């Protein structure tokens, strides 16, 4: 199967602010592949390197060594991002724009024609249930509405790969359900979804494959069932893989 997303011995080092360390290693030789059409969960505790991996894939941060490819194109080329959609963890958009204007802006960046944008924008607003608030400035939106607007802008170019950084973070149960439904719908359309999350329950229910990263190292990768193994749940498997020792309850 062709790998839509691929990293080869990806290493990222930062200059450390701590006295004793010259550099801090955020990623240590990460080898990862995501295949077309699958929903891939990228898991790890806080500070494991998930967001750093996404930053490298999106071209925000150059790797210290190694390489990363999207659709076979080096991530440092802007054209690599033509077929992806990205939803960051904390989403804030131009507060003075309305949702419609925001989508029109991003459509223009992707080079969509006016007619195509006119067709696509109402579809997306309906998908994320923002059609009633399309003409209101984003500064008047709730957190959930802003997240949905973010999802809409990530889908504006009908991407083949969707990169989502904790898409259900800060959402209420209804909001999380809507996001899961959208991910499922995208999967049914043959899109590839690569997302990170702390909600292992929804990862278990939505993902085809998962990878677990800890302290910059890839600890496990494979189908959900394979990673879970003999453990009762993905969560227990996760805790065991990252080396967490449960304290006895007295």
């Amino acid at each position, binding site marked *: 199967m062709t790998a839509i997303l691929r990293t080869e011995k990806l290493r990222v080092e930062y200059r450390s602010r701590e006295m004793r360390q010259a550099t801090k290693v955020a990623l240590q030789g990460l080898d990862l592949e995501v295949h077309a059409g699958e929903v891939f969960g990228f898991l790890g505790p806080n500070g494991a390197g998930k967001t750093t991996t996404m930053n490298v894939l999106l*071209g*925000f*941060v150059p790797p210290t060594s190694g390489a990363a490819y999207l659709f076979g194109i080096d991530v440092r080329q802007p054209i690599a991002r033509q077929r992806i959609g990205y939803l*960051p963890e904390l989403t804030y958009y131009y507060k003075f724009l309305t949702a419609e204007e925001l989508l029109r802006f*991003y459509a223009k*960046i*992707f080079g969509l024609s006016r007619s195509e944008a006119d067709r696509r924008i109402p579809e997306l607003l309906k998908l994320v249930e923002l059609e009633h608030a399309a003409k209101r400035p984003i500064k008047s939106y709730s957190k959930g509405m802003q997240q949905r607007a973010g999802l809409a802008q990530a889908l504006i170019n009908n991407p083949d790969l969707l990169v989502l950084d904790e898409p259900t973070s800060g959402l209420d149960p209804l909001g999380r359900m809507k996001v899961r439904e959208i991910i499922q719908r995208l999967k049914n359309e043959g899109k590839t979804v690569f997302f990170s999350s702390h909600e292992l329950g929804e990862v278990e229910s939505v993902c085809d494959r998962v990878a677990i990263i800890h302290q910059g190292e890839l600890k496990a990768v494979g189908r959900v069932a394979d990673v879970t193994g003999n453990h009762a749940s993905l969560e227990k498997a996760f805790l065991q893989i990252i080396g967490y020792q449960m304290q006895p309850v007295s």
Partner: protein
Amino acid sequence: MNNIFAVAGVVIKELYRRKDFYVLFIVTILICVMMASVNIYNDAHIVRYLKEICLLLIWICSLVVAVTTTARQIPAERENRTLLPLLAKPLTRVQLIVGKFLGCWLACGLTLVCFYIFFGALSASREHQWPLMNYFQAAMLHWFMLGIVVAMALLGSLVFAAPSSNSTICFVIIGGILFAARHLDQVALTLREPLRTVVYSLYFAIPHLELFDLRDLVIHNWPLIEWKYFGLALLYALFYMGVFLVAACQVFRRKAVN
């Protein structure tokens, strides 16, 4: 190019949806109307003092709009985290910088159009004449000067951490250039080496923004500048805009965005 114009469009939208421009415009109108209502020896034809006050306010307001609008572009994108979804699109950093520059510059142009129309109406109300070509030359040179200022402020926004420090430094530099740049070579001659060489080099290196200040010519109804010198001044401005933009692109390329 669509990318660049898309980014520029957002900047212009931001300008007319913020209150800054309207406040400055209204304050300018109020001050000018107040000055126009002053009785000076019962002579209703005196107009040059009014033109001077109006043009001074236009220059101050346009510089405030240019510097403050530009100084907050990249820092606000970074602070509001709108930079990440933007750069996740097929938009290079160079395109982003150029788009921001174009947006700020066009926004300044729109501001100037409004101000100069008001200025023309105000002076025509007393002078009963419309020296349109003179106003065109003055406005065009003013706009190109603001282009240099915008490019400089954009570079500053990438170098300095806070928009406030960038704005302050820009205002100080611009004020210094407008008041003293023309005479720096004379000042250099009064100094001893090596300061003389430093100041003399600075004289040739800095963009001479005072070249674009045609206020005295407009106020006192001097004839038009020759078009060849006008064209050369525009080219001079474009050169400095290019220098600052290239520097800004180089700095932004090396900056982390997260």
